Each structure stands twice: as C-alpha cells, then as structure tokens.
C-alpha cells in the first residue's frame, strides 16, 4: 500500500505568538509538526506493520525549514518525504491543490492520512478538499481505524463521547483525531536512521497546480486579549456557593 501522510510545520503550541505587523507573526518561535499530524504518522506506521509491503510518504507544503517536520515524520516511521517548497502563506483551497498534485506526481495513493486540523490556521477542511480533488471518500476526527480488504472501517468522534462509524472504500482520506493513538516518541536510533532517509524538495512552481476559484486571506490579525478584572467572592464555602448561584441566576441569567 502507498500510504501518504500530509504534515504541516506549525508554531509550537506552547509558544507565545507575537505579531510583527498587523498581518504576520514573528516566526522566530519554535516550529514543530502539527500535533494532530503526529497521530496520522503514528497510524501510518501501525498500518505498515499490519500490511508489510507498504510505503509511507510524508508530504509537506511549506518553507525550507519545514524539512525538520518531515525529518520528524521520518523518525516516527515514514520511509521518505516530499517537501513542496513555497514562501507563500497558502489557504486550504490552494494547499489541497498542491498536495493533490504532489501525491499524483509521486505515484498515487491507496490511503491519505492528515491531522483533523492544523493548530495554526484551524481550517479543519484541507482533508475534505484533497478528497474532493481525488474523488476519494473522507472522514475526519478518526478515533479508530481498521483496514480490511479494500475497505477502511473508521470510528470518528463527535463530541461528548459520541461516535459515528463509517465504512469507506479505498483509496480514502482520513483526518486523524487525538483519540486515534498515542504518538510515537522516536528513539535516538530512530532519529539517526531517519537522517539517511530521502527528502525530495520540489518547488511549488514545478507542480501543475490550477488556480483555485476562490480564496481566504488574512487582512488583519491581533492577539486575542480579553482584559478581565476579577472580583473576589469571599466568605464561607456556603456563602461563596450562594453568591455563585446568585451570579448564575441574576447576572448571567443561565440558571432558572
């Protein structure tokens, strides 16, 4: 099986984000693989164990330094990487077109794994757009995955512990959720081995990508600060509880 995993190079979730102007962030913060994509790579590695003749190819659209995210994917079990290099910020319509073109150029997929969303642009949609471009079925927020003859059986998490279970024919696109697995933590030998694995760099202009019929562009961005001035609720626990109930009833009006 040809297993493609789409990974994104994003700012570390623990990083404080600062703006350099009203549109762009200071990108000197540490960048890592998007956390949900770690679940996708981990699942691909498990799949390869189950279906031995498989190859895992990690694909990334990003700047030159996104190579480190591909390196992480290789250390986690991907066999090789493809970096489509661009300095542009791409919206999901363009990103999906580029990843689609890169996968076709590379040979074609039996299964494509992604994270359910990226933690930087929070679009939640690239997996669906890739699926539509290939005409492959798509599910997202996968929590369990089982591949049997030409079919994938996937349970996806909704909210509050609810799930939906689907059967998809292969090839298909699966957006990994956090419930899917525990990400592989590469050992030192894994990291050393991964240095010998190949990463191919392709310029975005080398790919045959049609223009999208629409776009989404950030016009302005600012840190979300909500200045709150805490008022203290004091007294005995009984008094504090009574005051909380009063606030819920009279101020927030959410309790009858």
């Amino acid at each position, binding site marked *: 099986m040809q297993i493609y995993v789409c990974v994104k190079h994003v700012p570390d979730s623990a990083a404080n984000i600062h703006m350099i102007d009203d549109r762009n962030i200071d990108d000197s913060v540490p960048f890592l693989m998007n956390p949900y994509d770690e679940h996708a790579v981990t699942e691909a590695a498990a799949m390869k164990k189950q279906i031995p003749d498989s190859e895992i190819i990690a694909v990334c659209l990003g700047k030159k330094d996104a190579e480190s995210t591909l390196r992480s994917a290789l250390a986690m079990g991907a066999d090789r990487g493809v970096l489509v290099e661009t300095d542009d910020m791409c919206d999901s319509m363009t990103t999906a077109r580029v990843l689609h073109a890169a996968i076709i150029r590379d040979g074609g997929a039996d299964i494509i794994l992604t994270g359910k969303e990226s933690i930087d642009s929070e679009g939640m949609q690239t997996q669906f757009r890739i699926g539509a471009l290939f005409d492959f079925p798509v599910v997202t927020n996968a929590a369990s995955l089982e591949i049997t003859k030409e079919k994938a059986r996937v349970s996806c998490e909704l909210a*509050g512990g609810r799930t939906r279970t689907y059967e998809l024919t292969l090839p298909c696109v699966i957006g990994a959720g956090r419930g899917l697995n525990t990400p592989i933590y590469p050992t030192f030998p894994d990291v050393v081995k991964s240095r010998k694995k190949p990463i191919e760099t392709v310029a975005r202009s080398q790919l045959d990508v049609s223009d999208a019929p629409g776009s989404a562009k950030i016009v302005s961005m600012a840190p979300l600060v909500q200045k709150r001035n805490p008022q203290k609720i004091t007294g005995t626990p009984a008094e504090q509880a009574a005051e909380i109930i009063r606030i819920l009833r009279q101020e927030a009006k959410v309790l009858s």
Partner: protein
Amino acid sequence: MKQAGIVIEMENGRVKETSLGMITLAGRTADSLTAMVMSGITDDIADHLSEYGVHTIVDLSLPDAPEIRRNPAVQATAVVHAARELELDRILGLSSPEGKDLLPRVAALLDAPLIMDCVDADLKTGTATTSQYSGKMMAKIQLTGKILMFGIRPNAVLPESKPVPAKTVAMTMDAVVPENISLQSWDEADTEGRQSLVEADIIIAGGRGLKNKKNFSLIFDCAEKLNAAPAASRVAVDEGWVPYAFQVGQTGEKVSPQVYIACGISGSIQHFAGMKTAKMIIAVNKDENTAMMANCDYQVQGDLFDILTEIMRQL
C-alpha cells in the same frame, strides 16, 4: 450578495438555540435569509424560524433511512443541490461537532472558500472574524469566490427575535447516496443526556485540582445539577480521569459559553486558547496566584470540593 442560506441544526425536534443565534448574526448583513432544514418542517419549526428573521424555509427532503439521512456525505450533496437550485452565494452553518463534519464537505464539493469557527461574519463584504493559532489570535479574513461559506461558532451571537413572514419551499431531489462511504452506526445523542460541550450555556471544567478520577465525578454531578456541560483541562485528560472528548483547550474543543466555571485549573496558555472567549469566567481555586484566577471575572478562593458540594446542596 443575493441570497444567504443557513444550514439549520435541530435538537429534540426543535431548532437549536445556537442555530437561531446564527440567523441573528446573518440577518445583520444579509437582506434575505433561507433556512435549510434536514429533518422535515413542522408548523412549529416554520414559526420559530420566521420569528427570528428567516424569509424562506427549504426542506432538503433527505431519504427516511437513518443511515442515509445521517450520513454527512449525503447531507452535503443535499446542501450543494439546494445551493445551486436557490442560487445561494453565501452559506452558513454551525461550527458544531456535526457542522465540522458537514460544512467542509459542502465547501469541498462547491470548491468554495470556507472559514470555520467564526465569531463574526459580514456577509455583504465577505469577511469573517475567527481565531488563529488555536485561539491565541483573532483574525479578520477576506473571502473571495462565487459562493462564500462561514462556519459560525455556537453561542457567538445570542438569538434576537425579528419576526418576518416566511414561505416554505419544497425541494425535490434524488438524494445522491455515495457508494464509497457508508454510515454503519452512530449514537443518537449523548447517552447520558449531557449537554454538548461547544453549545452549552454553562461549562464546568475541572483540572489538576481535582486530584484523581474518583473526585472528578464531582464535576459531572455538579454539571448535571446546573444543566451544564462537564469539561476538563488537558492534565485531567492525560491523567486518564476523563475521556479526550471533554478536553477544552488548544488541542481540545474551543468553546464560548455564557459562563465558564474553572475548578482547580491553573490556566495554561493552551487552556485559555480554548475558552477565553467565554462571556463570563468564574475561577475556583485554592491558590490565588494562578493565571486563571488573574484572568477571570469572579475569583473564588477556597476548597473546590467544599464549594461545589455546597452549590449542589443549595440547588
């Protein structure tokens, strides 16, 4: 802009409050609103929608078989069909659990731009306000294209009554049942009748201060009394006290309830990313010197076990 279509979500046969809020938001910048309903239209539903400003109500007439009508891939083709028939050039839906599985499908089929989790949207100019970098930033985004799509964060806008006369339109279509994706099983609703996290008015969340799994049941009990949704910080999830589905934060759900009660949560940057748009934050903690206690509306210093037990006793 010609016509804005709104995908309506229902709960127990009624239009969800969060869907009504979305109608209110759309009505601020659109002159003509079309509601798309998937579950059949009763007089009650039609009255309810027209009371909040919907001009046209469309029954997407999905097949009766539940495994087909509930399949988001089928629902997406129905919305796309309606969008084309009615010449919609703006489509809105909730960024709810169901919406996150439906709106991107519609956007992909229409090859139209979509912004999820909008806290505001201007349908005339085609701009959306949404969080970026997992809730740390708020961005204004310009969409371009023939059809523009917006996923609206539940509770971003509260519903306001705005009665207009509404007409009901029947849509006849042969549902396209895709052969490559079938829905095998699903949960009807939360088995224990709990509130959906992203749509709840009140969320009561527990963190490290709960100390163990057994204690965490206090959060669930208190949530039931308050008719609130229970939630957890990442620590509580990683410790195995609650399933991942309850996590609020950068890698969990992003929520904007009327009231967020944070119990024993210190308030990491990742946790705030998931809940700082709450209208009111009440922090309960033994330690006064936490980020949550410094960035809340009401600071309740004390033993959370005593305080929550008291709340339950007094209700």
